[in-house]
């Protein structure tokens, strides 16, 4: 079995053409990146606002409740109802992207919100003491401090999107999921397994890139490298 998979993966026919691994991997990456961008554009500002102003916490609960919606069901539903209204070749891509965006919003939103919540109140106080106003505090202090948790939310969203985009192939979306769905339909196990390996590899690659991004963007002081061991805060509180 493993031999079959290796043979399929190393077959040069798999690496060229419309159905080749690079084409499909690129498609898959395209869908994932577009999804993450759109979801981030929606979720990060909302998370920042809710965390900064402390109002609209219910939005975060709603977003978490959104996790409960089964992605396969949403995919089928939106394909059946939104699909027919779109003419042209994007008719099958747009419903899938919509579902993937809805899937990616909860982790990003809760990561952003948790990030802002975790900002040390002392830092906020210091910023106000230095004369910064609301949006400046958000931009200069809260956002940078929230970055670790925000990035972790983004990474978790990226993983879910890449994994769920495979299922979207059952409504004819391209990408690496085609190997899974087509392999399933024709009962070719090595195609399915090979496709799974490619998806896992793509996910790992994406995560590595985002880890690099995280290292570049997050301030060194927040990485915990310079943390002292369990100091007791000035007011006697034991920090978590």
């Amino acid at each position, binding site marked *: *079995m493993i031999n079959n998979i290796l043979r399929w993966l190393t077959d040069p026919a798999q690496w060229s053409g419309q159905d080749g691994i690079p084409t499909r991997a690129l498609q898959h990456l395209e869908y994932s990146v577009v999804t993450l961008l759109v979801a981030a554009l929606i979720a990060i500002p909302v998370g920042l606002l809710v965390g900064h102003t402390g109002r609209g916490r219910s939005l975060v609960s709603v977003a978490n409740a959104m996790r*409960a919606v089964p992605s*396969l069901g949403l995919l089928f539903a939106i394909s059946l109802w939104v699909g027919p209204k779109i003419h042209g070749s994007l008719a099958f891509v747009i419903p899938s992207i919509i579902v993937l965006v809805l899937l990616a919003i909860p982790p990003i939103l809760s990561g952003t919100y948790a990030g802002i919540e975790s900002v040390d109140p002392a830092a906020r106080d210091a910023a106000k003491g230095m004369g910064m106003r609301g949006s400046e505090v958000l931009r200069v202090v809260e956002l940078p401090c929230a970055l670790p948790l925000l990035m972790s939310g983004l990474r978790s969203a990226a993983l879910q999107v890449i994994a769920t985009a495979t299922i979207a192939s059952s409504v004819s979306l391209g990408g690496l999921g085609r190997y*899974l769905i087509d392999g399933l339909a024709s009962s070719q*196990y090595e195609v399915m397994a090979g*496709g799974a390996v490619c*998806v*896992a590899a793509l996910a790992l690659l994406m995560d590595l890139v985002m880890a690099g991004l995280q290292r570049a963007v997050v301030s060194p002081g927040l990485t915990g490298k310079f943390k002292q061991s369990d100091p007791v805060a000035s007011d006697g509180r*034991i920090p*978590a």
Partner: protein
Amino acid sequence: MSWVLDHIGQILSLAGQHAYLAGVPLVIGLLLALPLGWLARRYPRLYPPLIVGTGLLYTIPSLALFILMPLVIGTRILDPFNVVVAMTIYTVALLVRTVADGLGSVPGVVNQAATAMGYKRMGRFFTVELPLAVPVIAAGLRVAAVSNVSIVSVASLVGVSQLGYFLTDGYQRGFATELVVGIASCIVLALLFDGLIVLVTRMMTPWQRAGR
């Protein structure tokens, strides 16, 4: 809707199947994740490989895992056991990091105080560290529970019987009502799991309520 009333028996039966396929892995996964998370916390050098290793498991697409499971564990093609094993793997992958972080969230001074009071390692783990880690672990468990319910519905693409049946059959026939009922049932089930975990957590952490 009258369709729902006509099919209430089928809905409940499939919901029960679904609950089994999502819930059992949750419990087993947690039990497996506890020692692994503890190991990651106790021996910091094991943290990166354990977390990365289990994270790798989560990158395997669910469809592939369901289909390839019979080849790995020798079950038959439609056996729900395939789904249970696959879901357990996902649950462990999600929870190891949560357990490690949960145990890590216990303040060092508390551990030191417990040791000073005479608790041995195992005793300290079960009576001090674990209860204090419950809030963080429970948060991770809620995410795992909801995610499990959603992933299990994908198993209808490989013919395993659960609420996902309404999704695939509704899509094939273009039957909106059935599709909506399928989605709604999954949501309700996920919220039930979530609520149950919140309830149990609240029972296990009376000190969080005490300060009101």
